[in-house]
């Protein structure tokens, strides 16, 4: 792999460096950080995984999504596909919080609710066009994120989980109890984006494809940025991140707010798609399902999370056929999937494309006087 130097020792070290934890003692427990990687994570990226992390993959998925109505335009297909896309948006948003930054959020549905309600109320009670509600939704999500995140993001792990769970419940119950949110009936008669000459549900579907596509791209790009790296540093080791001058609290805040905005916009799409929203749609179960999509797909991996969201969203629909066995089977399948893919369906792969790096290295070797005389 490394064409320079070519010493046996270097080769030996590098082949060791490739090591991955494989079958270290079957059935042995491994504490958090000892867990190890799935077989093959540190191996050179295979063709398939190289494809998934390339822009081509995103493009292909996008094209597939656009093609759905042309393949099957039945009302049911369009509906569950739209639902799945909205779920993708939620999962991708939560992935910023949980997957990138490692903050356990059990109340993500709160932001979803805030988005849906803000948009729903502004468009019905105040007659705003739905598209105009989006800035207001973003503002509301940010404010909510600030209010709840401010005092609580200092908390570690499961204390944060409880706080977010509580926040989710508070939002739902408040919506249920207030009049202007429509109480338990919620808000109904929510308008759509316009039909662009298409069947209304197909129009909503395409708008959703566009917005969710942008969101997925944005989150993937964020993940590969300075901020995205900072999130992962915080997730891996807060103290070490601090020592590098990273203000971990601000960084967590950014993740939380980012997630809030994604959740809020997903809420707008949901409100439009459902036309009627009520507190029933924002229960703890929802928060749990979104989290499951993230974990099932592979925390921190955008393609994984997209796949996870599609599965969690579509599986219960696919299981409609077996009647009463539906949720039983859903539960069993979840266990089976996880046992067979413990790192998630498409785990995040932190290895970078070697080729680019090696190119750099070769260039450097030519251009610079090497300091590492000690190695040779």
């Amino acid at each position, binding site marked *: 792999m490394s064409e320079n130097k070519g010493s046996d020792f270097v080769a030996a*070290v590098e082949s060791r460096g490739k090591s*991955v934890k494989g079958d270290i003692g079957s059935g042995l427990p491994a504490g958090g950080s000892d867990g190890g*990687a799935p077989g093959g994570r*540190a191996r050179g990226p295979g063709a398939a995984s190289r494809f998934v992390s390339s822009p081509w993959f995103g493009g292909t998925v996008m094209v597939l999504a656009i093609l759905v109505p042309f393949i099957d335009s039945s009302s049911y297909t369009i509906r569950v596909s739209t639902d799945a896309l909205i779920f993708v948006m939620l999962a991708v948003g939560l992935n910023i919080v949980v997957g990138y930054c490692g903050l356990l959020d059990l109340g993500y549905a709160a932001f979803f609710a805030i988005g849906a309600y803000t948009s729903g109320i502004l468009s019905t009670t105040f007659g705003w066009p739905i598209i105009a509600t989006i800035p207001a939704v973003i503002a509301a999500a940010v404010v909510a994120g600030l209010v709840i995140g401010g005092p609580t993001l200092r908390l570690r792990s499961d204390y944060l989980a409880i706080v977010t769970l509580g926040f989710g419940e508070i939002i739902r119950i408040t919506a249920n109890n207030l009049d202007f949110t429509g109480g338990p009936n919620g808000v109904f008669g929510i308008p759509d984006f316009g039909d662009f000459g298409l069947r209304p549900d197909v129009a909503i579907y395409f708008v959703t494809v566009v917005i969710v596509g942008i969101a997925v791209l944005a989150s993937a790009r964020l993940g590969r940025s300075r901020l995205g*790296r900072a999130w992962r540093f915080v997730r891996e080791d807060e103290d070490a991140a601090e020592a590098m001058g990273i203000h971990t609290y601000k960084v967590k805040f950014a993740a939380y707010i*980012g997630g809030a905005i994604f959740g809020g916009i997903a809420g707008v799409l949901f409100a439009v798609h459902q036309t009627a929203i009520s507190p029933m749609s924002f229960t703890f179960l929802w928060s749990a399902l979104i989290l499951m999509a993230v974990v099932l797909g592979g925390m921190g991996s955008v393609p994984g999370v997209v796949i996870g969201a599609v599965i969690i969203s579509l599986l219960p629909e696919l299981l409609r056929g077996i009647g009463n066995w539906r949720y039983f089977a859903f539960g069993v399948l979840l266990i089976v999937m996880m046992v067979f893919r413990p790192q998630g369906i498409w785990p995040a792969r932190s290895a970078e494309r070697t080729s680019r*790096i090696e190119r750099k290295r070769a260039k450097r070797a030519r251009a610079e006087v090497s*300091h590492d005389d000690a*190695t040779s």
Partner: protein
Amino acid sequence: MTTPLLEVRNLQVRFGGVQAVSGLSFDVYEGDVLSVIGPNGAGKTSAFNAVTGFYRPSAGTVRFEGESIAGRRPARIAARGVARTFQNLRLFGELTVLDNVRAGMHVRIKQSALDAVLHTPRYHRSEQRATDEAHTWLDFVGLRSDRAWEVRNLPYGEQRLVEIARALAREPKMLLLDEPAAGLNYGEKERLLDLLRRISEIGIAVVLIEHDMGLVMEVSHRIVVLNFGKEIAEGTPAEIRTNEKVIEAYLGAEDEEARHEAEEIAEEGRA
């Protein structure tokens, strides 16, 4: 010399009943290589932690470039130009070597979230620079492993180097190293010694905690010796080596055999 880079006065750190550091004072000047030695539990790491903001000092002052930093958040102190490594490796294990080093550059990378989402030229430029610099530092410390691998799969000695590269990437004015030689074999210690010298040469003040006397005696300009959280001696390596108090507390004076052994160990690294 002029005003010190780091000025620690009467530093105290306590945990409940344990007084880990009690009234420590020392200065670090530009270009210094200062070693802090002392028996296990003497308070060396605690002092480091207090200086870098991980522990809040219960009393005393810590000034960096004349400004008080005691009780500041670690990130703020780091941003001022203080970098450190940890006694137990604290790498981002599941991230690549390169990403680990990029962490050190975090505060210097100029790029906004919007740049990242839109992939502006500024984004590409800053990413490119970050990658280039990361390679520079990894070359500087002499890392041989593939930089695209998860760092936890690297041999231990290499991980130590990555941690130092990460700290250097911070481009600090002062670098604090907590037992960098622990777990390294003879050859690797030699390379570390060379690395420390080169770090000092590029103008970074080095503060070193170390139990490996060979390394300490070889590289240090000055040595501060701690015991029970207090300074018991300070001086050049030559002075410290013959200081009775130090021998008694650290190298062992009562027991001739042990002293002999300790000296032998000290010698080993000097070769």
